[in-house]
Every structure is written in structure tokens, then in C-alpha cells.
């Protein structure tokens, strides 16, 4: 089953890392990329190509991850879409705020690329066997 991911991440190299993991593992999923929350909301306006999962960075300029998350959760057509946080912070408050607002997962980006690649691979494999609500 081919899934559609939306990766919201302001750092170009982070986006490259995610894409490289997908490519190296020959994952046959579609990856949409947004540099920030505003851009992501624009993508989500096109209701015909909604993502199955959203991967969200917390630290972003302008609208940060949490603000985006709140907007998403208040939209009835989008609030079923699982959101997984990708962050460098394992700060207790960040985790708490995220789960409180409603996320399906929280991944702390490790320093080493190998470790990162392994985590992302596991996660994509996990979501590949999940069922989704079709909006």
C-alpha cells in the first residue's frame, strides 16, 4: 500500500535526510514537503490529495509546530490525520504539550544519521501496516 506523507520541516537538510531514508529503503510512498506551517496549510486546502500521515518539526520560524498542530486539530476534516513530531527536543514540556494537543507519535532526532535512518525506517514500516480513516 502506498501512503502519502506530508513532512513539515524548515531545514533543507532535514528534508533531504527524510527523503534519503525513503529512497535508500525503496519505500514506495509519496512524500509532500512543506517548509513551514503556512505552506503546509495551503497543501492541506486541496482536499483531493490529503496526506495519510503528517511529520511535523516543532521548531520552525513564524508558525511553530505546536501552533500548526492546534489549527489542524480544530479542522474537522483533518483532525483524524495522525501527526508524528520530529524534534531535537526531549524537553518534558514539549512532549506534554504535543500529546495534549494530540499527536500519534513523538520522535527525538538523534545526532547520528545512522540512528536517525533506523528510527525513520522503523516508523514508516510501522505506519505502513496501519489502517487509516479516509476523510
Amino acid at each position, binding site marked *: 500500500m502506498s501512503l502519502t506523507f506530508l513532512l513539515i520541516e524548515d531545514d533543507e537538510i532535514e528534508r533531504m535526510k527524510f527523503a534519503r531514508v525513503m529512497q535508500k529503503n525503496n519505500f514506495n510512498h509519496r512524500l509532500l514537503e512543506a517548509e513551514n506551517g503556512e505552506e503546509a496549510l495551503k497543501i492541506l486546502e486541496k482536499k483531493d490529495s490529503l496526506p495519510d500521515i503528517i511529520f511535523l518539526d516543532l521548531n520552525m520560524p513564524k508558525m511553530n509546530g505546536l501552533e500548526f498542530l492546534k489549527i489542524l486539530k480544530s479542522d474537522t476534516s483533518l483532525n483524524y490525520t495522525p501527526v508524528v513530531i520530529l524534534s531535537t527536543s526531549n524537553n518534558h514540556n514539549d512532549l506534554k504539550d504535543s500529546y495534549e494537543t494530540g499527536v500519534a507519535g513523538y520522535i527525538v532526532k538523534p*545526532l547520528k*544519521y545512522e540512528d536517525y535512518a533506523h528510527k525513520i525506517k522503523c516508523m514508516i514500516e510501522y505506519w505502513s501496516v496501519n489502517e487509516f480513516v479516509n476523510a
Partner: protein
Amino acid sequence: MGNDQEIFKRALAREKAARKQAEKILEDKSRELYFITQQLKEANEQLEDLVDVKESELQGVFDNLVDAYVLMDLHGNVQEMNQAAVELFGYDVRNEKLNVVQLIYKEDYEYAMTSFFKLTQDGFFSDYQARVYTKHNGVRTVHINASIIKDKNKKPIAAQGIVRDITTTLEQQRIFENQRQQLSVIVENSSLGIVLTQMGKILQTNKAFQDLLQYSQEELLEMNVQEISMPDEYKESEENMKKMTSGEIGGFSINKRYRKKNGGIFWAKTSVAAVRKQNGDMQYQVALIEDITDQREHEKQRDLLLKNLEKSNKELNDYAHIVSHDLKSPLRSMNALITWLKEDYESVLDEGAQQSFDMLLKKVDKMDHLINGILEYSSVDKGEHIQKTIDLNSTVKDIIDIIYIPDHIEVTVTSDLPVVQGDNFRLQQLFQNLINNAVKYNDKEKGWIKVSCIPQKTHWQFAIEDNGPGIPKKYHEKIFRVFQTLDDNKESTGVGLSIVKKIIDLYDGKIWVTSEEGKGTAFHFTLKK
């Protein structure tokens, strides 16, 4: 001859008549005497009755006198004493002889003799006050009024005295006086201004109050409270005063300004309390006045300082948090890019290039450790302190299970560890950092680490000893500073011990090191019980 007879007859008749008259006179006189005797007898009886009445009246007075009454001869031998006197002196002249001299307290002897001399001279003395020995009650102080009793020839025959035991009264007076003095010392030396007022009128002030307002006592006694208050604030005081008068409140405390003699103004905390009569009516008001001009100034400054400090503290914490995350992201990118270079150009990179990339990765790694250290360090005093009951035995056991301990090193707990109140995460961090260090730096073939605790009065004193390389004396203080490390090669960030220090500070403890180079180190630290 016949003539002679006649003369004789006549003489006889005359004599008879004279005798008859005499008899009559005698009879009259006799009767008169009888009546007089009767009258005298009656009068005497009446007098006797009167004397009896007076005597018994006197006896009653004498017996019922609250004060002791003593009657003595001129040599001081007591003739009579009433019940009060018996009770006072403990002697009873009906049973034993008593001379007043034996009652005189030895130090008062001279005074007693002088007074007795005065008594015999002037016939009385009053307000004699001296100490006497009593049979059962020790020395008592008495007050005596005495007078001389004289016979009809004005010859002194006895002396009488009314004696009052004033020991308790004197003692009470002394205590009262003492208390009054103590109180006045307190009031006079108080750094608080104290003022007694009645209906706004100043009745009494202490020195501090005079100093504060720069008026003399005499000036203040002519003034009322309104004159030293600010017009806009007097109202508030007056409203409170009304409530106090009605009994609604017992007292009140306000911060208000006062006007000094020179026109200057100062702020004072003023506590007013009502002094009430027995029936509850307010009689006076007593006010304590504390100059808080400086205090207010200091408070203002302190509040400002505190605010700034809080702000900069928060900023600093946020700063550490934000900066470290902002620094972490590029490090992740760098790691990824270097890894990709190594992977993608494996075939073209020679060994030297590969090595350089590996070293680059290590530096990136070290940088990441440092940033984590900053984060950890800045978060020690952040967040909630969850106080829980923690058994340090199990905390340390957990740590020994969690951390990597090579086979040649043994960690043992050599004494029972206490159960303490604290934050589990921080206590674990504390022990883990110390034990971890000891394990990491141990250089012996057979390494050991011992954890122990000795209870002290207010603190628990712990020791974590090892047989590692030891720490040179000059570093014993330095090692607790943040980013201070003695080791260049390993992944030490110099944060571990500074976190340990910070946690110990949180628990009002101390940490110090004893060490012999080459032989081992002992970290001693205390935690408040």
C-alpha cells in the same frame, strides 16, 4: 428655896426641849443620809453597769481588730495581745512570756530603740516601720502606731501598739515598682515610637517617638495626632478609630506618613490598639510607630531587583534551552552530510580522507555532548521538585544495574543508605554521575567503588570512594565548575560534577574531595535530613 426649885425646873425643861430638837435634827439628818446613801448606791450601781458595758465593748473592739494589738509595760513585757497579734507573731502571752525586744530584727535594733525613746518622750510614735522575727513566719515587715498609757497622776504605766503586717504589701509594691521600671525601660529604649493618646490628644510619648518627630515631650503633650498627620490620611485613621471606639475592631495597623517638626515627612507603620476600661469603653489608644521610609525604599528596590532577576533568570533558562536546540539542529545536519559524503564517495576517498571525516564526526559528537550538558545543567533547578520518599538503597542498586560496569570493577554499598525526602530524578542524577565517574576513570586492574553513609545530626553524610587514579589537590575545587574537565580524550563534558554540586546545593548540602594521587578518590557529600 422655892426659887431654886423653879430655876431647876425651868432648866430641866429647857434641856428637854433642846434634846428633843437635837433628836429631831439627828433624825432628819439620819434620814437625809439614808437617802443620800441610797442615791449613791444607785449611782454606783449604774456606774458599775456602765463600766461593764464599756469594758465589754472595748474587749469586742480589741478582739475584732483586724490589726494586731499589743499592750506592754514600760520594759517591753507584753501584757496583752489580741488574736491578730497572736497570729502575726506566733506567740501568745497567755501561755508564754514575751518581750518585744526579742522580736526586733537585729539590723533594725537601733531604729527600734530610737523610736521607743521617742515613745516615752512624746507619749506616741506613728508610722514606725521595721522588721520583726516571728515564731513561725520568719522575718516580717510591720507598721506600728504606738502610744503611752498614763495613770491619773500622768505617770506612764504602759504602752500600746497597733501593728500591721505590711510584708506582702511591700513585696507587691516592690514587684509593681520593678515591673513599672522594666516597662518604662522597654518603652524608653524601644526603637519603636510609642504614643498614648485620648481622643486624638497626645498624653504620653517615648524617646523614639520624640526623636522620630523631632518634637520634645513637652511640645507633644500640647499637640494632637492630627497635627502630625497628613490631612488626606487622617481620615483613614479616624475611620478606624471610630470602629475601635464602637468595639468593632480591637486595633488596626496602617502605613501612614507623619510630619516632623522641621516639616519633613516620613513613612511609618502604625499599629494602634485600644486600652479599655473595665466596662469595655475605650479609655486610651496606644500606637506603635515604626519608621519604614528606608524599608519602603529597600522594598521597592528589592522588588525591582527581584523582578529583573526573575526575568533574566527565565531568559537565561529559555536561552539555554533555545540556543542548545538551535545548536543541535545544525549538528544533526553536519553529521548527516559527513555520513553521506563517506557513503556516497566511499570509492574515491582514501584512508586519510575517511579518517578526517571520522574525526570530524567525533568533534560533532563532542559538541552534541556539550550542548546536552548545558541543557541538563540549566534544567537542574528548573521544573517542579517532586518531593517523594526515596529509599536510596534501591536508587543506588538501580544505578548499578543501569550503568555499564566492566567486569574488573566492583561497585558495593558498604553501609545501609537512608530513606530521604527528595526528587527521585535529581537524586538519581547525583549518585549516577558520581558512580559513573568513578567507574569511567578507574585505571586499576581490580577496581572497586564503595558507597556508604554516616548519619549526622542534621544531615546525611555520604561517601563514594574508589581506587582510581586520584585527583591532584589543585583540582579539588575546580572540578565542580561547569565545563571543567581533567580529561581530554574521553567524552567528558565537564558538566557531570557541576550538576552534582548544583543538586547538593538544592538539598542544603556540601561536597568535598579527599584523594591520594594514584591510589584513589573519595567524594564526600551531605544532604539535609
